[in-house]
């Protein structure tokens, strides 16, 4: 075959989430430390396609990105048509832990962005020992709501167009046009009401201020990276969060916005590579407890 073939492999896995059978699509590439990637609200695992094709990464990490139910190529559970989609902290945590169990991942690293950046804080707080390291991109314990999300899901406004237009301002102006528009395309493709449903978690159900005690960054290192052009989760939000977690490492990323891994993969690599190096070196130096 002469045509370029990417090394990413996509498959479906079946497992239950909160008692409901789910068929979940995931993509993976690489060998080594399992690293689970969590997409942003209203998008899907394609956001991580660049990291999944980066040999510097996949030579040491088994990179896995799944589409949450209702997103990308993962259908909603049977009966979804009779209720509105609403992501709660409980559902999000259950989804991640059920996926890890389904694939029998051994203390994976989890890297999440936006809502994924928020949930890694809760993972660190409630189940830190289950993970080798946690990476929150564009994550903080709380952000002030700044617009009425009802505009994202109503029949007289095109949902895909408005979701993409709204988040377009969160992409850094330096990001290449190709990747800016790929990032926005995923929002244009999102199912009706799904972005808004994800934001229920972000806006209503996950104010973690004052609730992140007991995080042990010696056992599970915690890295928080936020793009300087992200005015939804600003670097100030992230730095404030990190200051409350002993040992958490926070970095403000230049010339990046809310979607670092998909909007400008070259720029993002400058920041994520040292984090992945540190995780790999730690693994090499001292095997995790119980291994």
């Amino acid at each position: 075959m002469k045509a370029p073939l990417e090394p990413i492999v996509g498959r479906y896995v079946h497992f239950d989430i909160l008692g409901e059978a789910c068929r979940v699509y995931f993509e993976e590439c690489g060998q080594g430390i399992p690293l689970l990637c969590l997409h942003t609200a209203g998008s899907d695992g394609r956001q991580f396609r660049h990291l999944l094709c980066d040999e510097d990464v996949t030579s040491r990490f088994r990179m896995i990105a799944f589409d949450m139910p209702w997103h990308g190529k993962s259908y909603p559970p049977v009966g979804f048509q009779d209720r509105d989609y609403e992501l709660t902290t409980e559902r999000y945590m259950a989804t991640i832990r059920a996926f890890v169990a389904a694939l029998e991942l051994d203390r994976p690293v989890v890297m999440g962005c936006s809502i994924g950046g928020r949930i890694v804080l809760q993972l660190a707080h409630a189940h830190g020992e289950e993970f080798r390291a946690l990476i929150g991109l564009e994550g903080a314990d709380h952000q002030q709501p700044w617009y009425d999300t009802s505009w994202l899901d109503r029949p007289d406004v095109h949902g895909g167009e408005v979701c993409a237009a709204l988040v377009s301002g969160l992409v850094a102006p330096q990001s290449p046009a190709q990747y800016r528009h790929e990032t926005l395309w995923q929002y244009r493709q999102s199912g009706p009401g799904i972005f808004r449903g994800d934001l229920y978690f972000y806006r209503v159900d996950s104010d973690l201020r004052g609730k992140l005690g007991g995080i042990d960054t010696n056992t599970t290192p915690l890295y928080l990276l936020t793009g300087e052009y992200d005015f939804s989760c600003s670097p100030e939000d992230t730095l404030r969060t990190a200051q409350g977690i002993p040992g958490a490492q926070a970095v403000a990323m230049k010339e990046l916005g809310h979607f670092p891994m998909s909007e400008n993969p070259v720029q993002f690599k400058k920041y994520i590579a040292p984090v992945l190096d540190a995780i790999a070196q730690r693994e090499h130096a001292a095997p995790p407890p119980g291994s």
Partner: protein
Amino acid sequence: MTEPLQQRFESIARRVNADARLVHRGRYLSADLKVVVADVPYLLRIRGGRVESLQSQMPLFAPADLVIRGTGEAWAALWEPMPRPGWHDLFALTKRGAMAIEGNSHVLFAHLQYLKDVLALPRQTPAH
């Protein structure tokens, strides 16, 4: 400082109507926008995605579908070739209090990307 800002804003009419793709994207929008650049109010009349007229002599209490009001600093920052973080988007400016958008929100959200792109046009090159 105000005059160059006004000139840059006034270039929007020519820029929009010269951009067939932008006009096409706005083809379902016909609205009157009151845009306040620093202390100068403009009436921007859009019909089918084209700028029908742009006038700075706006009568008091003239009706408008949307009112978009920004400080001189806000518009100047938005139109920098590579705008600074937090000054790079209508909503970023709104969130920081340097801009206010009021009126019929349905017009705004139904045509959000078109309106963002129209109001960012002076960023591209000098007006004249």
